[in-house]
């Protein structure tokens, strides 16, 4: 095993000449956003490209506006397209043209109503959504007028929490947080005195390691739940199901990438990370306090067997 990876590494080190002949010398611009797993993953892929003798540069951008930049070719790719949070921006950019879908990761994503474990002590029937609805009043705040308060994700993530509360007749009011950081602040504030909270959350995410918790189980997702009222328990309403428990995590590429950097593009289509791998990347930064570059070094060193086949398949 070790021998094999050493061999692959040797080929990787000798190939730059061959690769450089085909791939452009211009730096491949990789966008990074403001959550750890994406930053580390981008660094991992960047270092793989550098091993292949390519030039790489990183640029920090907004995670919604980035699709416009991929479309224009200002950045070459995007490594984490979450179905729930960015699916809308991605599809919008897709329809304008200029970028395309470069395949899925093995990882599946789930985004839904979530609570930290201590909430279960106050409402033992969880994770069932009807049980949640029965103890709505323990989630009440000074402003919610006796109803429970559910803290939804930012509006630009288009989560439809309000519609679901109406469709399922729940005794909750929905307040939108303005940012991921605002969600963490709310959970962090509830932690010292174990106040029950129910908020929007997703996996894979660093928060799982900091605050153990569970997703609320809503009526299972059926295709068309967001477009056909007859789907789901309420025959007259949309959004009366939970979110898909297995959302995609895609990669996106600029249309010009395949011609400009063929081998880099090939690696992009081959590579795919799993949930535990992504969680590990986030953990190296979020709990072990490494810098993203160091975290990428460490992760690559520990996972040569995973990445080397992708590189060797393309060079």
């Amino acid at each position, binding site marked *: 095993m070790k021998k094999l990876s050493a061999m692959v590494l040797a080929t990787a080190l000798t190939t730059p000449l061959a690769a450089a002949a085909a791939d452009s010398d211009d730096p491949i611009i990789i966008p990074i956003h403001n959550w750890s797993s994406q930053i580390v993953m981008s660094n991992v892929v960047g270092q793989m490209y550098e091993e292949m003798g390519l030039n790489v540069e990183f*640029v920090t951008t907004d995670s919604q506006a980035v699709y416009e930049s991929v479309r*224009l070719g200002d950045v070459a790719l995007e490594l984490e397209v979450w179905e729930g949070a960015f699916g809308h921006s991605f599809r919008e950019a897709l329809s304008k043209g200029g970028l395309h879908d470069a395949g899925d990761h093995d990882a599946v994503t789930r985004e839904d109503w979530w609570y930290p474990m201590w909430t279960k002590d106050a409402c033992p029937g969880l994770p069932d959504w009807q049980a949640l609805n029965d103890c709505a009043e323990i989630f009440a705040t000074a402003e919610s007028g006796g109803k429970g308060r559910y803290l939804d994700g930012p509006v630009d993530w288009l989560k439809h929490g309000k519609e679901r509360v109406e469709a399922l007749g729940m005794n909750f009011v929905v307040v939108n*947080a*303005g940012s991921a950081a*605002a969600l963490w602040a*709310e959970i962090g504030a509830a932690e010292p005195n174990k106040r029950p909270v129910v908020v929007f959350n997703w996996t894979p995410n660093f928060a799982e390691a*900091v605050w153990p918790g569970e997703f609320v189980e809503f009526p299972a997702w059926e295709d068309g739940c967001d477009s056909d009222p007859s789907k789901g328990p309420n025959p007259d309403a949309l959004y009366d199901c939970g979110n898909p428990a297995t959302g995609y995590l895609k990669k996106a590429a600029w249309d010009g990438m395949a011609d400009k950097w063929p081998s880099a593009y090939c690696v992009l289509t081959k590579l795919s990370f799993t949930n535990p791998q992504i969680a590990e990347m986030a953990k190296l930064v979020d709990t072990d306090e490494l810098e993203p570059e160091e975290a990428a070094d460490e992760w690559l060193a520990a996972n040569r067997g995973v990445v080397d086949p992708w590189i060797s398949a393309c060079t």
Partner: protein
Amino acid sequence: MSDSTRVDAMRQGAEAASIGATRTRTIVLTLIGAAILLAVLKPWIPSVLVRLPDDAILPWADWLDAGFSWLQNDIGLIHVTRTISGWLGFLTDAAANILYGKARWPRLEALPWSVVAACSAVLGFWLGGWRLALLAGGTFVWTALMGQWRWAMETLSVIAVAVPFGFCIGLLLGMCAWKSRRFEEALRPVLLVLQTLPFYSYLLPAVIFFKVGPTAASVATIVYSMPPMILMTIVGLRKVPPDVVEAGRMSGCTRWQMLRYVFLPSARSEILVGLNQVIMLALAMVVLTAFIGMPGLGAKLLAMMNSFKLGRSFEIGVTIVLLAVTLDRLSKAWVVKQPEHFERGTPWWQRHLFLLLGIATFMLFYLLSQFLPILDEIGRRQSLSRGSEIDTLIKGFLGISWVKAITDFIRWFFNIWVLIPTELALLFLPTFTVILAMTGIGYLLGGWFPALVAFLFFSAVAQLGWWDRAMLTLHSTLTAVFLAMLFGMPLAIWAAQRERASRWMIFACDTAQTFPSFIYLLPAIMLFGITPITVILAILIYTMVPVVRYTVEGLRGVPREITEAADMAGATRWQKLWKVEFPLAMPTIAVGLNQAFIFAFFMVIIAAFIGTRDLGQEMQRTLAGTDLGKNFTLGFSVVFMALSLDIAINSWARKRREILGQ
């Protein structure tokens, strides 16, 4: 004889003024009365006056979209802007190479941190002695010790390009405006719009036209930091005394020589104050521009916040403030420092002592850092960052039960008894009531022109189709400014009486202005939840700055003779304050109030990060799906409201100045 005519004239003036006052009162009362009547009769008035029906709202967003696509694709503006961004990119890359060794032209090695720190200490010493040397050197030592060197240099590489551009373009536009009245008249509204257009509206055009990354970040920084430079240049050039101009003419200067040797040197102080403002605003934008590719401290700060690392984001905030204060003090010292004159025959080395000292320091530390790697670079593991300890400290404090009890009470009281009822009241009011009331206020403050502007602009807000959200934005803004006056005024009045206290107060203002607002958003949420009071508090910190600063400056600017005269007339302290100092300081305070409104409109949109339901939230939504047209209709709703308040307050201040003969 002449005295009695003067008294007559004054009496006539007073009569005219009192007639004017009665007329103003009638008009204002009529307008406000009509507004109240409409609100009372709400169930019976035609629904058009309550809310503009949807089919009366024109498709502004679609038209704007078409306009943008025409600009971008049909006339090819994007090629022009992309060429410009290519040049800018070259400059930021070169700066990045020098500061942290990015692999670009001129391909030098990164400067060791100790060299930068030592050289800035020498610069500080030359400009302002030991204290400044300590500040400038200390800032960079702190940055390196905290393990933030690389990020700080990434940030500075963009600032180093944006600030000279902001300065030069601002100076140039300021000179054109000073030369041509018409140009100035055309420029002023554009500047006002640029200043009041919400940050979210800059985001998408900057990314599309100038390429995401340092270039878009530097363009946004330049645009945002330039207006005060233009205004200060105009002020400075206007103030050049006629005898100086005359002297220049008599010595036969050409037009270019006049500008170079007469006008610009005479306006030096104002121009450099403008430069100082450019620097401060550029640093205030460090975190926001991270959304469009500004590398370094801001981007790190956002990443830290999203993984809930309060301590380390706090440390980054301190670095940004230190950098801002250092650059500010250095540039101010440069303003004060007059050119040195040496006697004829002073040797070269004596005239350039500090330059030589700087070069020697550079060499010394460069050599030292070759042998002592710690002087070259401090790694993350060697750094003294205490992020997780600060985290524990903050969380511990927030967990204390009496803190919780106090904040819970504030939250309950303000939300339930103040903010939510006033918010509902404002939403209840018919659209036309608000328009009439705003027109009335405009008339009261500045006469028919601001009234007309308020009428047209608030009607435009109604026409743009986001009335309810606009009212929520207006509500937060008004409340925050009101609270800022309530808390800020007494503080400023107290400080203005005392030399030391006023200096500290101004320092606190500088800090609050540059300390990235994002950092206190998180503790604010932890204390007060995601509720209206948190939004108000976040805006409040920002809006109190201009209120305090201008009140302190206004009160301290009252001429000594006048306060002495009041003392001699036997006025008590309160009488002196209320009857003498306050009226005289009022125009300056009004400028502060106006600034407070502009800051509040700026921050209320940023507060969308906490979670609001106003225009800011809707603008955030437009970022997904890159909805430029809708984004700009929302942005201009803010611009119109901010502008009508701005125009009203400014014309009031101008009238006061005329009355006071200032």
